């Protein structure tokens, strides 16, 4: 009896362990499927207000690994030249009028709307989150992930991943206690070339901003190696020159 019990328990633990390993591995796969570790990218951000009014921004972004991300707004004219920089846990905002970058937090929003700075200067999930639990529901995996430290924008995420494509379908951003902050919907999978096949549209809404919607449309993603000096405060006004 005892022998049977111990064998059973060992199998259960192994299965759990296997799942745990699978969870983190899956997350890593999702990260790689979404973006190469170093790239340049063009995105359009559309903020939709409850009365239907729209505001569109075009953003150019470069990334090197999980520690360096930089971006600059190309349009509209009122925002052209506004830059952002992420180094590790730190973020800065550059406004041409001001002349010198100011340090901001990941939760503040540089554009208004539902997306915030962390959403825009996104790095790998795996760099910030660890898988706590994994479920399977039909043709999707559901990953419950928790932030690795307190400086990460969201304490918890629920990520629904398509089993076949290993791409996210839906993502919920939650507080530590599980309150919903916002939901991201990944749509329109497109081939961006060089083996990058991923959703080209992310829609977001939030129970905290009823009636508001934000949409991110990816138009170009290309692998690119970039020098370290691109990701410095002094280079912020010049990110545009990389295009």
């Amino acid at each position, binding site marked *: 009896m005892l022998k049977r019990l111990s064998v059973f328990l060992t199998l259960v633990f192994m299965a759990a362990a296997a799942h745990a390993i699978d969870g983190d591995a899956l997350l890593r796969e999702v990260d790689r499927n979404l973006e190469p570790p170093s790239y340049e990218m063009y995105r359009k951000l559309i903020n939709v207000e409850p009365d239907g009014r729209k505001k569109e921004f075009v953003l150019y972004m470069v990334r090197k690994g999980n520690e360096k991300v930089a971006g600059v707004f190309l349009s509209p004219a009122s925002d052209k030249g506004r830059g952002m920089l992420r180094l590790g846990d730190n973020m800065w905002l550059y406004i041409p009028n*001001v002349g010198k970058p100011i*340090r901001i937090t990941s939760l503040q929003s540089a554009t*208004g709307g539902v997306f915030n700075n962390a959403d825009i200067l996104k790095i790998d999930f795996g760099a910030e989150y660890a898988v706590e639990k994994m479920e399977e529901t039909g043709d999707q995996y559901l990953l419950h992930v928790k932030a690795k430290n307190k400086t990460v924008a969201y304490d918890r995420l629920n990520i629904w991943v398509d089993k076949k494509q290993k791409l996210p379908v839906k993502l919920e951003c939650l507080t530590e206690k599980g309150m919903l902050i916002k939901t991201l919907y990944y749509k329109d999978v497109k081939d961006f070339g060089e083996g990058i096949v991923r959703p080209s549209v992310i829609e977001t809404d939030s129970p905290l901003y009823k009636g508001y919607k934000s949409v991110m449309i990816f138009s170009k993603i290309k692998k690119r190696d970039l020098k370290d000096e691109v990701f410095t405060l002094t280079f912020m006004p010049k990110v545009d020159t990389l295009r």
Partner: protein
Amino acid sequence: MLKIFKMAVRNTHRYARRSLLIVSLIAVGVVFVQVYMAATNSYKNLIISQITDSMLGHIQVHKKGYLVSVENVPLNMNLTAEQTARAEAILKGNPLVESYSTRIKLGGMISNFAETTNIRLAAINPGEEFKTVPLLPSRILEGTSNLKPGEALVPELLAKGMKLKTGDTVVLVATNKDGSVNGKQFTIGGIIETAPGPGGRDGYILLADAMELLRMEPPEISEIAVRLKDFSKLEPAFNSLMKAFMQEKNKDGKPVFEIHTWEKLSPFSAIAKMINMMTLMVKIMLVAIVLIGIMNVMIMSVYERTREIGTIAAIGTQPNTILAMFMAEGLCLGAAGVIAGNILSVAVIYGVRLMHVTFAFGMREGFVLTPEVNPVDFSIISAIVLAVAVLGSLQPAWKASRLEPVKALKSI
């Protein structure tokens, strides 16, 4: 008439100890009410003038719907230039208005480059603003109230938190109405003290700078603060302004503006109302004391003097005259209590003033309580006590006048 009062005074002396007791009781009650009223009025007025004179103004005008979303500092609820002009015309045309001041309210971020945090700002025209809110300059702890273009007054708590001083450079970042983000460098012109209530933690910049920061073209205004010539005429002034503003309607026939007194804008008005209610209760208590005290004394007096009453009725005194005699006695007791009470009250009030009692409110300390001897309040309380004294003696005096002489004469 004089004879009746002469007799009344002599009769109160007849039962000297009893009279002294009731007069003392009334006097104590009067002192309590007068001093309480003077103190609470001083307290209330100090706080209210703090709120209205250093921040809110007496009355504020907004676009309709603004106040409901005031916490969000909404930019889409501003008055257009044309609407602002119409509002200004109404204000200029009202004789009760002393001055007004236009403001833009906005929310944004303030950064010293190393740290960025949220800030609420009020953009003003200093000339107008200081006329309308005259105590605002006194809230400035360091630096100058003479704001120049590109300068900002930063709230004390924020300055402490970010270790800012006058002359430092900061960046103000604001989201514009259309959603775009703009920033501008400012120099800190001064540090401003927190005031109690909403808006007490705002920073201040010039209207022109705000319009630049918000890329406001054409210019807009969030609120207009109004100062009246005479604050005691708040209600009639408000009513006349309200009437004028409600006439202004938009294309759908709905009112363009909304207008509120400081009471609707500050939670302190609830406290002020509570203080008024407590004052009323204290007055009611005084009335009860006087009424019951006098009635008690007069009932005893009538009972003890039944035979005397019978005598004067027998020799031909009219019932109404008997009534008047006893009411005069009650009135004399009341009057003595009022006079003694008022004299004592004046002494106590001046005593409190000399003591320099201070109190704190909100984040500020060192308000000095300065109760005043207000002749109107004193007269009203005195009149109330006298009226109640007469009322209290009414029933016993009535019974005295209705005594049957035959029965009264038989009593001991």
